[in-house]
């Protein structure tokens, strides 16, 4: 069996996208076409995907009678109707095809809409891109799709869109809680900015934290843009992220760190919700203590800084002495308790608008000290 691929990629996307407004849908498809056509002139590229994008559809072999049975195709290109019954019929037709030929159905979408390193070799020749067994009596239970095809989630989320001309389009709009004496913070990250920030963090994970493809990185992060930055950084370098809901307690976090055997932890200083601030760093420190007691050590940590009223901020204390002085000043001349003064060796630096706490050799309370200023 050769893989069934339609002749034109843009028609595929247009054909079966049900829409509340047919007119709009067609516009959408056309706009996408234009975007795609202009992509080759974009400077910001990584050569690999560019090559992929430029593969003309005709290379892919002849199109076959698949879901795009001729009647459907004619009907949907020109006449798009809002009639739910009509849409239902179209759904049913596509559904029937999808369950009869699941491998071809998904491969077609995978080929059309996503970037793969070995896109053509794989999807043109591979007959076994889907298999599963749900019955333990017949052998091991497993699910498998596109085994042997190489891809990258961050590339597909960021680079692919940037190449299409979406570099300056916003990827993430952050709306802050706006409570807790905090400056109102709305922040937009464009696709390019998100790529830039996540690349920097990815480098940090590779070169400082020594993260290898397949390693687990625990992310104990609240709803801040940095969580997306972190997920993209992990995806870029093939690391496996384990995001732990920031409402979990230290015990629950420790359990998840230990079970996933993670050696690297990415976290944030605070979490803000409903006008309240939760000191995540304290929970993290406690979780680390629990891990340690159970014989599991976190080796590297990265902390995203999001302190009250602090963004953007440029004059963070950088050295231990400065931290101690700042504390003294804030607390009416009182010295910091000795339990804390021994702790920190962390150095904070502005980092493309993010603040990272670099903490290679820190003891458990590094956070507490820095944040309790």
């Amino acid at each position, binding site marked *: 069996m050769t893989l069934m691929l339609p002749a034109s990629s843009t028609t595929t996307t247009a054909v079966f996208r049900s829409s509340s407004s047919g007119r709009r849908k067609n516009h959408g498809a056309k706009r996408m076409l234009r975007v795609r056509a202009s992509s080759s002139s974009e400077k910001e590229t990584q050569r690999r995907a560019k090559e992929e994008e430029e593969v003309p559809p005709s290379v892919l072999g002849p199109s076959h009678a698949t879901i795009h049975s001729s009647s459907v195709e004619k009907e949907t290109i020109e006449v798009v109707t809002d009639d739910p019954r009509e849409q239902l019929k179209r759904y049913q037709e596509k559904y029937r095809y999808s369950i009869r030929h699941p491998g071809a159905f998904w491969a077609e979408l995978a080929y059309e809409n996503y970037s793969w390193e070995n896109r053509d070799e794989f999807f043109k020749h591979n007959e076994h891109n889907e298999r599963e067994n749900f019955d333990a009596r017949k052998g091991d239970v497993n699910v498998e799709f596109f085994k042997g095809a190489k891809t990258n989630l961050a590339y597909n989320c960021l680079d692919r869109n940037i190449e299409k001309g979406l570099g300056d389009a916003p990827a993430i709009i952050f709306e802050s809680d*706006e*409570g807790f004496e905090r400056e109102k913070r709305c922040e937009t990250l464009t696709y390019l900015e998100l790529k830039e920030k996540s690349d920097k963090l990815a480098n940090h994970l590779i070169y400082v934290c020594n993260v290898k493809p397949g390693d687990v990185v625990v992310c104990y992060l609240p709803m801040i843009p940095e969580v997306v930055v972190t997920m993209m950084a992990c995806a870029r370098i093939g690391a496996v992220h384990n995001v732990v809901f920031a409402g979990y307690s230290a015990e629950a976090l420790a359990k998840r760190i230990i079970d996933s055997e993670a050696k690297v932890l990415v976290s944030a200083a605070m979490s803000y*919700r409903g006008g309240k601030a939760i000191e995540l760093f304290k929970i993290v420190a406690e979780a680390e203590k629990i891990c340690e007691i159970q014989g599991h050590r976190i080796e590297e940590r990265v902390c995203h800084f999001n302190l009250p009223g602090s963004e953007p901020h440029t004059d963070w204390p950088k050295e231990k002495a400065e931290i101690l002085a700042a504390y003294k000043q804030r607390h009416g001349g009182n010295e910091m308790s000795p339990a804390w003064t021994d702790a920190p060796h962390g150095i904070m630096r502005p980092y493309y608008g993010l603040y990272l706490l670099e903490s290679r050799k820190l003891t458990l309370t590094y956070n507490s000290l820095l944040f309790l200023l």
Partner: protein
Amino acid sequence: MALDEQESRPPPVTIWRDAEDPAFILYTSGSTGAPKGVVHVIGGYMVHVGETMKEAFNVKAGDVTFCTADVGWITGHSYLVYGPLLNGCTSILYEGKPDYPNASRLWEICDKYRAKVLYTAPTVIRSLKKQGDEWVTKTKRDSLEILGTVGEPIGESAWTWFHDVVGEGKLPIVDTWWQTETGGHVILSLPNVGEQKPGRCGLPFYGCIPAILDPQTGKELDGPNVEGLLALKPPALPGMFRDIYKNHERYVKSYFQEIDGYYVSGDGARRDEDGQYYITGRVDDVINCSGHRIGTAEVENALARNVFVTEAAVVGIPSEIKGQELFAFCSLREDIQFLKEKAELKSSKYTPEQLIVRDLMDTCAKEIGSFAKPTGGILLLQPGTGIPKTRSGKLVRRVLRKIAKGDLTGDFGDLSAVANPESIQCIIQAKKKANEAEN
């Protein structure tokens, strides 16, 4: 310093990985034991999430989408981060609570950034509904084209309010059923496909075949108008989880061996005459509280670690806003008369019982998180009362659930499987006493 080096380093080389290599782990609660690390892989997850995002919400590059789920749950992963980015959309990441500083916040955010899609949870809808229509109607919401819900079955009244008040009767409601394990949508009401009906979840997504199984026999029930366990049979969806981290045996056993040949979801469902599915809620010992999936075993273990308690049982009771709330039965270590003498339980303001209850609440918050507190109530049982169990040691939750809900008639049907039926009467007495004390 190392960070300076990152500033000058070229961007990292993209590491191309096999489609079947793991992308992420996400922990979720099961009916027994420790939380499970659900493993998702790169290729299949990407295609599944990207395509369901496109179909369910009708998005194209440049559209603004607003998913209110926390990124720590699968909805956040799939439809706040990956789904929108894969489609070139703009995703709104809102840090705070839906009703802070007031109940207009979500709608104001939609207006401010011209969101086209709002994807939220029934528990959010119910709590905002309670605050009154004016919080909604004073906002424009004219950029919205699709309203989505996820997390638990949306009841008829919440659906109607969402549709009529928020969507002004004009917008399609896309209800979606899926799980941490499935990675992306499985059953959903695709916008404008077929007739809209309140409370109805919808039709299967492309490439998957749901099955309704008889809970007693495990046989598949064919045709319309059947109700039972909701399962999936091959072919698989590409976004399906591939494993439980480091525990393949548990993966096979807890999902595929309950009824051979099917992925058993743990939810119940009904299929109507149009082949559309209605989700009826969890059928196992997992509680859906405000959209958080909480394993009763996890909370029971936490409570049993408290110094005052030897044994605990947790059940779900219905709640207007949260969907379900936790209710706990806790056997005390010592007689309450003795406990009264303890220094830490002496207070002029509170009774020892109140102090113990508060301590138990704290235990849950500390061990799991504050969302796992038994806000439905905690019933303290004198030592020796026991908690009803079968001879094989399984808690008789059916009976406990009824008592928790306030059914104190003692008429609980066939109790022949219960090893210690006398405990039931004791618990009823304790509940009656607690009710009196409350009044």
